[in-house]
C-alpha cells in the first residue's frame, strides 16, 4: 500500500517518520521508499543508500525558428506562464518558466516552433539495506518540481515498487502542485504536525487538501509533543482525525537526527511505535470497493 507522509508545515518531521516507517517495515515485508521532496531530498542522509541508477527528467521546451517566425505574437498570447516574449523582430523563450504544455507549438500559424527536451532534474535510485530507495532532485534554478515527482513515481511503478507491501513516499511540505502529485495516488496520508499555532494552521490546509479535495484517508502523527499546546489535539478531536502516533519533544531525538541516525536505530524504544503506526495506517485504508470495481 502507498503511504504518503506529508505535512503542510515544513520541518515537522516527515523524513523522520518516513525513514522510521521504511526501516521497520522492511524487516518483515518488501518495502520501498521514495523521497519526493525534490527541492531538498534528504532521506538519503539517514538511510545511506547505494545508488545504482540515475536518469534525467526532461520537459519539452519550445525553440523558435527565426527564419519562419513572423513575430505575430500568437505563442506569447497563448502561453499561460508568460514564458515567451514576442518582440517586433525577435521571440524570446524563458525556459525555466515553461511548463512544457505545448500550446505555443500547437498554435503557431507558421510552424516555426519545435520542441526540445530540457533537463530539469534527476532521479537517483538504489538500495538502502532491505529498502528499495529512490529520490528526485530538482536542478537549482528550475521552478517545476511536479514533473520530477511524476517521473519518480513512474520509475518506481516500472520497477514494481508500487506493488510492494509497503510503498512509502516522503512528500514535500506545503499544499501546492508537488504535494498534490504525491498525494493523489495515496492509499493513506500520514500528516505529520507539531503542537504549535504554525503546525495547526498548516495542518488544516493539509487536511483540507488530502481528505477533502483528494479524498484520501488521513491519519495524524503528532511530533515534538510537549503537551503544552492542546490546540492541534482539539482540532483533531473536533474533525474526527485519528492521532496515530505521538513522538515526544526530546533532546535525544534531535541529537540523533542531527547526526543522521534514523530514530529507530538510535533510539530503538521507538520501534514499537512505528510498527503500530504501520498497522494503524493500513487499517485506515479504504476498503477496496468490490462493488464499484473502480480501482485501476
Amino acid at each position: 500500500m502507498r503511504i504518503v507522509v506529508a505535512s503542510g508545515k515544513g520541518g515537522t518531521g516527515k523524513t523522520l517518520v518516513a525513514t522510521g516507517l521504511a526501516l521497520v517495515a522492511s524487516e518483515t515485508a518488501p518495502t520501498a521508499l521514495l523521497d519526493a521532496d525534490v527541492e531538498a531530498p534528504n532521506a538519503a542522509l539517514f538511510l545511506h543508500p547505494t545508488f545504482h541508477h540515475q536518469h534525467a527528467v526532461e520537459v519539452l521546451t519550445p525553440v523558435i525558428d527565426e527564419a519562419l517566425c513572423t513575430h505575430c505574437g500568437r505563442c506569447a498570447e497563448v502561453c499561460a506562464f508568460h514564458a515567451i516574449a514576442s518582440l517586433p523582430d525577435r521571440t524570446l523563450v524563458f525556459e525555466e518558466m515553461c511548463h512544457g504544455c505545448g500550446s505555443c507549438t500547437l498554435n503557431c500559424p507558421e510552424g516555426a516552433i519545435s520542441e526540445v527536451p530540457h533537463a530539469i532534474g534527476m532521479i537517483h535510485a538504489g538500495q538502502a539495506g532491505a529498502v528499495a530507495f529512490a529520490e528526485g532532485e530538482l536542478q537549482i534554478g528550475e521552478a517545476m518540481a511536479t514533473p520530477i515527482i511524476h517521473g519518480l513515481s513512474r520509475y518506481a511503478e516500472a520497477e514494481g515498487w508500487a506493488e510492494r507491501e509497503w510503498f512509502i513516499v516522503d512528500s514535500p511540505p506545503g499544499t501546492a502542485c508537488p504535494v498534490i502529485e504525491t498525494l493523489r495516488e495515496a492509499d493513506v496520508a500520514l500528516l505529520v504536525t507539531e503542537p504549535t499555532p504554525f503546525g495547526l494552521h498548516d495542518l488544516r490546509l493539509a487536511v483540507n487538501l488530502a481528505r477533502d479535495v483528494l479524498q484520501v484517508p488521513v491519519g495524524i502523527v503528532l511530533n515534538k509533543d510537549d503537551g503544552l499546546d492542546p490546540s492541534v489535539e482539539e482540532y483533531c478531536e473536533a474533525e474526527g482525525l485519528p492521532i496515530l502516533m505521538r513522538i515526544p519533544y526530546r533532546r535525544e531525538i534531535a541529537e540523533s537526527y542531527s547526526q543522521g541516525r534514523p530514530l529507530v536505530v538510535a533510539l530503538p524504544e521507538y520501534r514499537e511505535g512505528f510498527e503500530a503506526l504501520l498497522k494503524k495506517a493500513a487499517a485506515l485504508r479504504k476498503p477496496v470497493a468490490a462493488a464499484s470495481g473502480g480501482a485501476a
Partner: protein
Amino acid sequence: MKVVVSSSGPGLDSEVSPIFGRCPYFVLVDTETNDAKTIVNPAISASGGAGVQSSQMLIREGAEAVIGMNVGPNAMQVFVAAGIPVYQATGGTVQQAVEALRAGTLPLLSGPTVSTDHGKGAAGGRGMGGGRGMGMGRRG
C-alpha cells in the same frame, strides 16, 4: 522619444514605482511634447512571468527607453533583446524622472537590480506558490 516609467499611479505627478513587472501603472511619456499616456499594468497579479508580460507589452506600445527603480532579470533580458535602454531612477515623480533623463543624469542599467519575483509581495495580495507545476494526466 517615447520613454516608459514604472509608476505608483496614473499621470506625470505620480511617484515612480520601486518595482517593475508588477507595478500598478506605466506612464508612457513623449520626451519632446511631454504628452503622457497611462497604461494600467495587466501583469500586476500574474502568478509568474510578470516581467516578461509587462516588458513585451511596453515594447509593443512603442517604448524606446525605460525608467524604473528596480528591474528584474526577465524584464531586463527582454529590453536588452529589443535594444531598449533601461535607466534607473532613485525616486521622485514620473515628471522628475523624465526631466532627469533629459538632463542626462539617470544612470543606464546594464543588468537586473533585483532577483525574479522581487515585486510579488509588494504588489498586494498573496502571490506566492500559485500556479506552479504542470497538470499531469492520471495514471490509466
